[in-house]
């Protein structure tokens, strides 16, 4: 892990649990441990990819980081300011520095607001700019994301999916945040448009030094854009490594299964690939297996995996892995 660059996000032992409290109607529902003790640090200009399948807790963790979901335990600091327990006013200040982009741009935009009004809103709400200055800033932001200033008067329905995602990115960048949480930002887009948005995110990072937490299930996209990769399984980090190390020497059996499951866009490579197909399904986060949470699907599992949960431990090449056998 590179030490240069200021820390933008410092999350320690974050846990988010749902339910479990008794209700009016008898027996309490089982507690869903969506996120279960996660440490995560992100530095300026860095892209950290958060990888995992449905139900692994990646979206819950992202929501906690931007302050949309108060964690059950742990601390989350954005540029040194604590998100957990912050009052409304403090949280408002922190949100200047952390923004979010979602998967479906059509659902993230107000269909009745012009593109200009949408991009201007964060600036006018915080009285950063008004009047002619506001107009100038909006034009600048639209240009920055590859749209034209005259697009400001149009409505979302007049744009394609890729263009809408550009609008969402312009809005997210309006206040020059230190961290943007991107939750599957290109998953809903067509392949050729996906490449445009990835190129845009890379260009903007080079220009502004913004850090990305890039939530994705698509490892080919992750390999392209991430500096560091974090894999989650049932609410915990099971592997974390710099990109080069991660893709050259994946260690955790779950990571290896994920990699072998992603079909390579090359029939020759794909046929030669060693398959490592997982049996069974993801257990429910309301009923996490004891010991290593992965042992029910793991081809390497032994007795110790059933009884003891492996800690995330550093390896000589800098990776951190939670596995007794890897």
């Amino acid at each position, binding site marked *: 892990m590179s030490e240069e660059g200021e820390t933008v996000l410092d999350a320690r032992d974050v846990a988010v649990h749902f339910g479990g409290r008794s209700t009016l109607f008898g027996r309490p529902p089982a507690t869903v441990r969506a996120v279960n003790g996660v440490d995560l640090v992100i530095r300026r200009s860095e892209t950290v990819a958060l990888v995992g*399948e*449905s139900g692994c807790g990646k979206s819950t963790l992202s929501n906690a980081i931007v302050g949309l979901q108060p964690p059950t335990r742990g601390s989350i600091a954005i540029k040194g300011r604590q998100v957990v327990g912050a009052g409304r006013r403090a949280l408002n200040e922190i949100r200047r520095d952390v923004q979010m982009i979602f998967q479906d741009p059509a659902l993230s935009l107000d269909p009745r607001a012009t593109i200009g009004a949408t991009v201007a809103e964060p600036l006018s709400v915080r009285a950063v700019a008004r009047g002619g200055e506001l107009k100038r800033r909006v034009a600048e932001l639209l240009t920055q994301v590859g749209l034209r200033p005259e697009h400001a008067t149009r409505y979302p329905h007049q744009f*394609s*999916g890729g263009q809408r995602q550009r609008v969402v990115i312009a809005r997210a960048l309006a206040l020059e945040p230190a961290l943007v949480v991107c939750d599957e930002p290109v998953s809903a887009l*067509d*392949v*050729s*448009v*996906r*490449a*445009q948005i*990835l*190129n845009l995110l*890379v260009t903007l990072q080079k220009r502004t030094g913004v850090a990305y937490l890039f939530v994705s*299930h698509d*490892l*080919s*996209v992750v*390999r*392209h*854009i*991430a500096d560091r990769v974090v894999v989650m399984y049932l609410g915990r980090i099971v592997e974390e490594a710099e*990109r080069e190390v991660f893709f050259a020497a994946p260690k955790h059996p779950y990571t290896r*299964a*994920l990699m*072998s*499951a*992603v*079909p*390579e*866009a*090359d*029939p*020759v*490579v*794909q046929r030669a690939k060693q*398959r490592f*197909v*997982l049996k*069974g*399904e*993801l257990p429910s986060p309301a009923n996490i297996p004891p010991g290593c949470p992965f042992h029910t699907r793991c081809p390497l599992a032994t007795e110790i995996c059933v009884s003891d949960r492996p800690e995330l431990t550093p390896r000589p090449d800098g990776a951190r892995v939670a596995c007794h056998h890897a």
Partner: protein
Amino acid sequence: MSAADRPLLSVEDLTIEIAGASVVDGVSFAVQPGEVMALVGESGCGKSLTSYALLGLLPDVAERTAGSVRLADTDLAALPPRRLRKARGKDISIIFQEPSASLDPLATVGAQIAEALRQHEAVSRREALARARDMLEAVGIPDPDRRLHQYPFELSGGMCQRIMIAIALICGPRVLVADEPTTALDVTIQAQILDLMKRLVAERGTSIVLITHDMGVVADIADHVAVMYAGRIAEIAPVDDLFARPAHPYTALLLASVPRLDVAPKATLATIEGLVPSPGDFGEGCRFTDRCPLASERCRAEQPPLFEERPGHRTACWHRDRVGEIARAAA
């Protein structure tokens, strides 16, 4: 094509119009027994409409104005509704992207599989359930005796897709149309479903028409690929040849825009500028003209036919000899 290798499914000159615009225009392809044909393209290219037309399931706004869909000796497109209903499920079946939306939430999965069978064969309820149970086993559902009596909400997305496949295959159709069957699933589950489909092809000789936008899925399972753009086939080829030597600029750019192992991290990916034209303004010539780096006057004026570049590899491009330039520039 000689009589010996006559295709199982053959689509000729299929044309579908919506409000007077040809959203699918002269599409032809053939599928051999036990072969996987992938229809690839981006949103709005007509791949899903083409697949619905195979089963006569076009939405009301769309109309097939020309072309035939032959399954062995029958022209499905010419069948009266009653006969077509008989063919659906028995000779040709379809599965969709969102399995939970295709299943009846109020019926057990066993009843749903059995119902599909009893539509086509005069078997008792008991016999149908027994065959449904064997089918569950065949699609890799653990503990089939218990699952038979469960409802869709009790099953995960991957299991529901296995149920859909079981329903589609219970009558032993010769062709399975799969419309983005793994798009809504996680990658490890996607791998399981793709393996299952490959196994079914190998064991039962079922042919598959696979609709997808994912080049990785194509590389994994397809034997032949038809790349569609704005309602037409741009290029059609055996899978290895298509990936190794794309002969249409659209295919070349599509392949170059997918991040691959041999592309440096954070390097600029190839993109396709502009947008797919809307059905209203397709124009006379090649529909890719406005976005094509090789476009010339001829492309604008005249639609290129499908040229046979190599055996089985056809491409609709006037400048097919220069497509290599695009692939090299992108690399």
